[in-house]
């Protein structure tokens, strides 16, 4: 299958910079994600890869060959749209057959391929149903079938799950992942849902305002968010980020900040050049207690519980600390308006530059995790 390379891609609409110098490579057979909030340029990037948009500058390469000037029709790619975009007046069969008809495939061959594809996707029963009568989930599967039936070397998916009922999303995602593994097709998956992206992608790219924030494996994105933006975007709930200051006291780095009850010394693993920083911790890494913390080596904050969100596995408390809302995962029932203390183990603290937003120090505890080296 094919590799895709995006080289210094820029796309400007009438003075609005939608994509600002993005470069990344997708390996053959990889399930690659483009993750970011609405308006970050991920769909535009996908459209440039597909040929539906022409880049203002930069190149798109398939297997090393420059396809930037090639028309969409000739790129031999498959695409699934957020709006399904199946042909409503045609039956499921005709939808699936259409790409083959366009390629003048003989009718018997068409029949064979359509049945195969319908089999894989479980569409056998509805082959004769007209497009507009299908449910959204069915439409999306037909769309997927139509996208792969002619054996394209690249599959592009533009937020395929966003318009589906949440109950159908997981199942459709499973179909997609299954097909991808089966066909070993290079896939690029655009979404704004970080949970989706992190759970299915082999590698992904996080974008914001047209710029590339981070590229890497899901674990890297999750455990080592490269910028403040990524840190605040990834994770359910995402990392808590607060202002802070680093002082050098006789070779030891001290961290203080609004909300922190006392200054804490950072372990030797940390080396930070800047003074003004943003520090962060994950909601699941902190501990709530009713009494003041005894451990002076950890960071400590005091706050008042505002509300609680319940998820299936845990409770997320929204705690008001010094005017800022901090989210912490906890167990048990804590009433709103209760005063609580939050303790954060010092080796789980992330340090970001306040000036550039870049990650200055990842928590040292990550080194100890699993045999994976990143």
């Amino acid at each position, binding site marked *: 299958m094919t590799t895709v390379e995006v080289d210094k891609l820029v796309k400007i609409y009438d003075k609005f910079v939608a994509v600002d110098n993005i470069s990344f490579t997708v390996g053959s057979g990889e399930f690659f994600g483009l993750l970011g909030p609405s308006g970050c340029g991920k769909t535009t990037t996908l459209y440039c890869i*597909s040929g539906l948009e022409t880049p203002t500058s930069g190149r798109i390469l398939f297997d090393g060959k420059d396809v930037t000037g090639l028309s969409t029709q000739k790129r031999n790619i498959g*695409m699934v*749209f957020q709006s399904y*975009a199946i*042909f*409503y007046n045609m039956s499921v069969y005709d939808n699936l057959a259409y790409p083959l008809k366009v*390629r003048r495939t003989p009718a018997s061959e068409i029949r064979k391929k359509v049945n195969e594809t319908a089999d894989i996707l479980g569409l056998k029963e509805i082959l004769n149903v007209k497009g507009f009568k299908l449910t959204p989930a069915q439409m999306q599967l037909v769309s997927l079938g139509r996208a792969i039936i002619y054996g394209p070397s690249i599959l592009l998916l533009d937020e395929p799950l966003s318009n589906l009922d949440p109950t159908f999303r997981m199942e459709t995602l499973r179909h997609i992942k299954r097909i991808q593994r089966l066909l070993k097709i290079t896939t690029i998956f655009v979404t704004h849902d970080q949970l989706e992206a992190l759970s299915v992608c082999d590698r992904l790219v996080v974008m914001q305002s047209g710029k590339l924030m981070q590229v890497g494996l899901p674990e890297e994105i999750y455990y080592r968010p490269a910028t403040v933006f990524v840190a605040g975007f990834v994770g359910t709930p995402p990392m808590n980020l607060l202002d802070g200051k680093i002082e050098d006291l006789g070779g030891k780095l001290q961290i203080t900040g609004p909300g922190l009850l006392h200054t804490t010394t950072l372990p030797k693993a940390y080396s930070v050049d800047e003074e003004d920083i943003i520090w962060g911790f994950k909601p699941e890494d902190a501990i709530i207690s009713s009494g003041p913390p005894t451990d002076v080596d950890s960071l400590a904050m005091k706050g008042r519980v505002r509300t609680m969100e319940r998820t299936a596995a845990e409770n997320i408390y929204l705690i008001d600390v010094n005017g800022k809302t901090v989210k912490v995962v906890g167990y048990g029932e804590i009433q709103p308006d209760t005063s609580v203390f939050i303790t954060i183990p010092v080796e789980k603290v992330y340090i970001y530059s306040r000036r550039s937003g870049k990650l200055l120090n990842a928590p040292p505890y990550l080194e100890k995790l699993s045999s994976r080296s990143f």
Partner: protein
Amino acid sequence: MAGRFSSLKRIETLFIIPIQVLLWGIVMAPFILAIYLSFTNWSPAVSVNPLDAKWLGLDNYVSILTNARYLGAVLRTTLFALSGVAIQVAVGLGLALLFYYGVYARRILSTIMIMPMMASPLIVALMFYIMLFTKGPVNAFLSLITGQNVEIRWLSSPELAPISIILADSWMWTPLVFLITLSGLSLVPLDQIRAARIVGASELRVIKDILIPYIKPFILIAVIIRILESFKLFDVAVFMTAGGPGVATETLSIFLYKEGFLTLRTAYIAAGAVVVLLGLSVATYFLTRSIYARS
């Protein structure tokens, strides 16, 4: 609650009364009278009172249906209507596609392009009349580009006069088809077009498989409007060629007018009008039903 329903009934009937009075008074009653008269030998030349006329049964109908000139007029009008509409749809659709795919200076161009629609048929007739003189601008232009002396007799030749009429009519109404088709195109979901391109369909296929099926109802409406209106073709043909030369451009309305008003064989004419109306009604009924059936 009772008060609500009675006020409901009242508004329903109240609002429909004026139009019924108007249409029955001005359109239907005379038409019904015309139907009655078509079975008689009534002629205002003899007596204005309809009751004085003698009952002729179906005589008028028989004689009009065997009148070559009448049949010629019907045929001619049908031809004008159909060929005019064909041109209007072909050109209108083509222009709509052009604008849909995008042109520079779109607003100015489209404003100018729909001007013909706003003129009244008589003005259009006047414009084409002064353009199509044998020694007029159109021939002069043709002479210029062909390098030869072009002296086409647009209005005085029996072969070309009908074409001139059709051209004038089409010039006037193509913008309507253009507008209707363009608005239909704007409603085609973009993603379907994109999907078709992705799977490899060439632009022509996209037009054929996606765009055209979507705009079919719009074109159908335009066609029905145009065919019905074309059957009443009168102003343009009267002004430009007075129905001639001979009967080359004599449309149905012109024939009825000349025979009815100028020779006063009115009952006879009424039969002719009734026949046409019956035909058109049947056609419209089936056409309209097909639109409603589709959606």
